């Protein structure tokens, strides 16, 4: 029996600590890995890979935000700005000091973590909407600073061109090369988050989310763990910004404005707060939905409207449909796509002998 939970007897600590205790889960992961790393890149055109690339970047950012919002129960509307901190740190290091991406990338993440921890200080005293406004202030201050301090932003245009990342002397430039580059980071981010949330730190985060006073009473250092949550989450955001910068070849402050923070919040809310899979679902959903709607409209819109009108209708209808689908999914399942997926899975687990 490969897909049943019963009869799985753990006799070693290793078995107990395995990320996927069930054989079927391990196989599924292996199949997905083969699909993503071998079959998809070898069989699909660059255009489709470029969409996956955007998803990969979004996955890293959504995971980071979910650690903070979903697991620790703190809120941040400043993640767009933390991304820009990572982006500009890496861009400056790459251009001024000529550092390679494997130095600039963690450096960008660490700088974002530092700034994120500072912006997170108000979380020690305030919660909920008040914290949201405090982080919003962080977003605006960082945006303003990058926009006006030319030492950081590299001139009046506030954009820095970054050379392509190089691996063993070869530049990573085409979408197909970028695909592997970004996919590795997305995979590392997923693995790191899954392990983080079941570690001592992750359990402390969850305790703080569920009841911070109770958490403090059982001996969790709230001060330390709240700031740690902000730092780790911002580290992910910083890495997202760096990946984005290397992907586009330019760090530009207009790419990290407040709408980006909101988009990422939308991702984790749609996907499911406090779940790794939910972050991935959310990133995929928010990135793909506009594209899918447009492709559908382009194919079938001509049947209903004249060609001139279609051009005007597509973008507007896309926005309307996007909003309506988000509402639809949230009404159907307020806990997000992850919960929807679990419901479907649970249904089929006992199918056809439902009781």
């Amino acid at each position, binding site marked *: 029996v490969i897909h049943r939970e019963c009869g799985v007897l753990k006799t070693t600590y290793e078995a107990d600590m395995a990320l996927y205790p069930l054989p079927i889960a391990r196989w599924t992961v292996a199949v997905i890995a083969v699909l993503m790393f071998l079959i998809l890149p070898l069989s*699909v*055109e660059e255009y489709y890979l*470029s969409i996956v690339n955007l998803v990969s970047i979004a996955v890293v950012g959504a995971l980071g935000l979910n650690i903070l919002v979903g697991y620790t129960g703190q809120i941040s509307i400043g993640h767009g700005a933390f991304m820009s901190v990572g982006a500009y740190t890496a861009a400056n290091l790459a251009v001024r000091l000529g550092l390679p991406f494997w130095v600039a990338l963690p450096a960008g993440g660490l700088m974002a973590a530092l700034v994120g921890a500072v912006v997170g200080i108000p979380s020690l005293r305030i919660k909920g909407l008040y914290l949201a406004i405090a982080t919003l202030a962080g977003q605006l201050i960082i945006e303003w600073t990058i926009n006006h301090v030319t030492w950081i932003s590299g001139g*009046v245009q506030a954009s820095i061109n970054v050379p392509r990342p190089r691996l063993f002397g070869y530049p990573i430039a085409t979408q197909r090369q970028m695909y592997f580059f970004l996919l590795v980071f997305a995979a590392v981010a997923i693995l790191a988050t899954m392990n983080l949330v079941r570690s001592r730190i992750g359990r402390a985060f969850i305790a703080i989310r569920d009841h911070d006073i109770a958490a403090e009473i059982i001996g969790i250092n709230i001060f330390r763990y709240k700031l740690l949550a902000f730092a780790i989450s911002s580290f992910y955001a910083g890495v997202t910004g760096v990946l984005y910068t290397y992907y586009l070849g*330019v760090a*530009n402050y207009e*790419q990290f404005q407040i709408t980006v923070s909101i988009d990422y919040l939308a991702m984790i809310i749609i996907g499911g707060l406090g779940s790794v899979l939910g972050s991935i679902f959310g990133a995929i959903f928010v990135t793909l939905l506009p594209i899918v709607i447009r492709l559908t409209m382009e194919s079938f819109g001509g049947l209903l409207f004249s060609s*001139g009108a279609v051009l005007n209708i597509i*973008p507007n209808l896309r926005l309307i449909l996007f909003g309506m689908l988000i509402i639809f999914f949230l009404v159907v399942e307020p806990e997000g796509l992850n919960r929807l997926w679990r419901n479907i899975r649970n249904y089929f687990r006992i199918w056809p002998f439902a009781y």
Partner: protein
Amino acid sequence: VFGLLIAAGATFGVAGPAAAQKEVVIGLQCDRTGATQTVGVYLCPGYHDYIKLVNFKGGVEGYKIKAIEIDHEYKVPQGMEAYERHKKEGAVLISLYGTPHTQALTAKLTEDRIPGTSPGFGSAAATDGTKYPYIFPIAATYWSQGTAAVEFAGKQMGGLKGKKIAYLFYDNPAGREPLPILEDLAAKEGFELKTFAVPPPGIEMGAQVLDIAQRYRADFVIAHLFGRSPSVSIKELKRIGYPLRKVVSFVWGASEADIEAAGGFSVAEGYNAIQFAGVGPDFPVLNEIRDMYKKEGKEPPKEMASTVFYNRGVLIAAIHVEAIRNALKAKPGGTITGVDVKAGFERIKGFSLGGLVPPLEITATDHEGGGWVQVYTVKGGKFVKATDWFKSYPDVLAKHIKAAK
């Protein structure tokens, strides 16, 4: 699932590069729903109508033009996705829209050797075709607009020496871009320059306008604003009694919609604005478009009423078609690529479209085509041409372009 995915991949692989013969594809990025949608809803129909007219008249050198529009909501990831889609469809030319998108796609366009145009936005440094081989501003950049604004101000005041000029700008990189040029000219011409930043979203500028009009008492105002803010600036300046004939705006500060939003043409009487395309309904090409619709038994589109943005769409499309025409002429019967279209751009000269397009001369080193502008003034309920096509201080511009990174 496996087989299905592989099959799907295989079908995409086959269907992709098979571009139809005798057709040239242009990738058109638009913003009809995002931050600058007030521009896109007029500019993009103008673009499509000109392409339609060209195809209606039999195409270019026997080829039909196909413009594939993708709306990116003024968001960079969407713009990136749009570019990859256009590339897949075999586009030989990308009509970019938006400064951040131009920045983000510059590296890609250069690597893929597909020319992209950034009329009225993007970086002024892209004028230098040797540094940015595949980016074509094709219309006056903010730097050229800056020099033109100063020259116009000087003519209106009868000299610049000792005068006080206020620069009212939207506080973002695009708004700050002309600053080095203006500072340089202030030193050169001996006028005093003071800057007044309007923070985004730019709909609150009472304090700045009061400062300009009553404390600083500026002799002339150069305004560089976007979106809703130009109309606010007109309203505020009017309210405080500052004469609008002493104001000149950059290219994104004066469309019919801006004037209407400020309270109508009677309120804005005297307001000056720089334009990179001819304004008004009286150009031969626009009559041809109207005739085309008439022959099809349709009404001309209502977007034509917004002549500022609609005409810009026509201008961009016309320059694109000229570049493609040059490319096709150089390679009769062959399949043209982005490299050919780039060379086609660099041979554009003496193409005026009945006065709608300035006397451009795009070369391998000058991708801006000279930086020509016209100033239009609001007078008697419409925009009236105040100057002919002109360009100013080429030496100052050349110095900055050379020094730019």
